[in-house]
């Protein structure tokens, strides 16, 4: 069984937002709906100030609060690690939107929350999610952590990583490369 995850090297991000546009095209989303976003963070004090651009999306947590609170199991976690939404089961209570610590869920016109799907159905064919494949700087590395020869497994061995809001106990499957300073 695959064990999908994503590694993001935020220091490489130029902020071009091609990942967001590629995702919107992949899923035919209207302009105001997006499954990934860029957070701009400043480091240091004048005159030594730097900017880091942090891509944020659904973390496909191993302990997903959105799935815990869903009354009908419309949000569920697959054995390969993907957290997905069954639109037919969703009652539209938005409890998952309230419970998500990453603010990554958006409600569509049918009253159903939407978020990054890790391109389920697409990745099983061996393809990369468009947010990863379209990036000119290889900011995102997506793959199977159970496969020691996958690009993500190899890179994870060479870098130190951190997770966003790890203190919430959600155990995210999106990892970030830790840089000095």
């Amino acid at each position: 069984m695959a064990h999908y995850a994503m590694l993001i090297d935020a220091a490489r991000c130029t902020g071009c937002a091609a990942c967001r546009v590629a995702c919107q095209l992949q899923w035919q989303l209207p302009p105001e709906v997006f499954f990934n976003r860029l957070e701009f963070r400043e480091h240091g004090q004048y005159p030594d100030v730097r900017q880091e651009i942090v891509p944020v999306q659904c973390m496909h947590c191993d302990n997903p609060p959105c799935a815990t609170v869903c009354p009908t199991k419309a949000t569920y976690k697959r054995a390969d690690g993907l957290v997905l939404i069954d639109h037919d089961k969703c009652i539209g209570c938005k409890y998952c939107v309230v419970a998500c610590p990453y603010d990554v869920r958006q409600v569509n016109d049918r009253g159903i929350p939407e978020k990054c799907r890790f391109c389920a159905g697409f990745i099983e064919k061996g393809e990369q999610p468009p947010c990863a494949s379209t990036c000119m700087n290889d900011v995102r590395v997506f793959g199977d952590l159970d496969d020691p020869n996958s690009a993500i497994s190899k890179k994870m061995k060479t870098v130190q990583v951190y997770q966003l809001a790890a203190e919430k106990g959600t155990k995210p499957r999106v990892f970030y490369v830790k840089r000095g300073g």
Partner: protein
Amino acid sequence: MPKFERWMALPGLLVLAGLAGAGYKLVYGEHALGTTAAVPWGSLIAGYVFFAAAATGVGLVGAAGHYSGRPALAALERPSLFLALSLLLAGFGLIGIELGNPLHMIYIVFSPNLHSGIWWMGLLYSIYMALLVVECYFSQTDPANKNLKFVSALAVVNKVAAVCNLGAIFALVATRPFWHGFYFPLYILLTAILSGAAALAAVMWLSARRRGREADGGVMAALGRIMLAAAAVTLLANAGKVFHGLASGDPALREATAALVNGPLALRFWVLEIGLGLLVPLALLVKPGGGERVFRAAVMVLIGVFFMRLDFVMAGQMVPQVVVAGVQHTLMHAYAPTWTEWALIGGAAGAATLLFAFSEARFDLGAGKTVARGQSLRADASA
């Protein structure tokens, strides 16, 4: 069918406004609401909590009639059943329209998630409604009240569980520090009793006046005492929440509390929730007096508790979550209810009023114990 009376025009108009709001929501979906991805729960959730908690409070105060042995409270037994049912149906209507896909609720049965507070809410409040229907039936068919007493005992356990679980839906959300913790399940139980007693007092007084009579002084005095005690404890609970929040080491909790006492929600909090909803009613109720004084206090309490629910729902979501350490795009998330939301809440209030009026006309609520107008209520109250 009850005969049309002039006063029914107001709740009737509210119902029409609610129907217009419901139609608009059906056509425009989420765009009809002021909610956003950052503030996903708005006034309709607050409105649902208000009606569901008030229905539970009415039921708990009414159940006190069974067990307290006080004749004043026993007179509330039947009206409380029909009022609770009316309020609960209004609340269900409101949440049904708020939900994006209410028809998918069938999956609550076929794909249940026992970890979800909303699943338990669906179960417990469905049981509450079923028990209320059975209680209403027995109240009309079983004069000895043998069956009613048995069902009522079950219902009391269900009511406490349902309203505490309603609080737990908020309290278990670890991502919202203002809601998180043991406080809200107990607080909502307390304020459910407050709003339940207030709803009963308002209805008993209006119902008597409608028939050109004065409400029974003993009943109004008993309800006044319940409201006085509940309002006093609520005031203390609010003080505790505010002091704890402002002194908290958690910035999100501190900022949410500050939003309430000294920020965007401050006017509503101090004027409507604390002033109108608690302090003025306390001042009115602390003096002995007639039913009209209790009625006035009850109306103020109901308005105050509605805004209490709204403020609570808002304060929990206004402070942006820190996803990336050191990044905060906005100081506070904004939210304002749309006309659709106000129309739906007004419609629910109007529908609850008309449903109760219909019950009064159609069934024997035993609310005939009134006093001819002009007779001393004080003497009656002290009896």
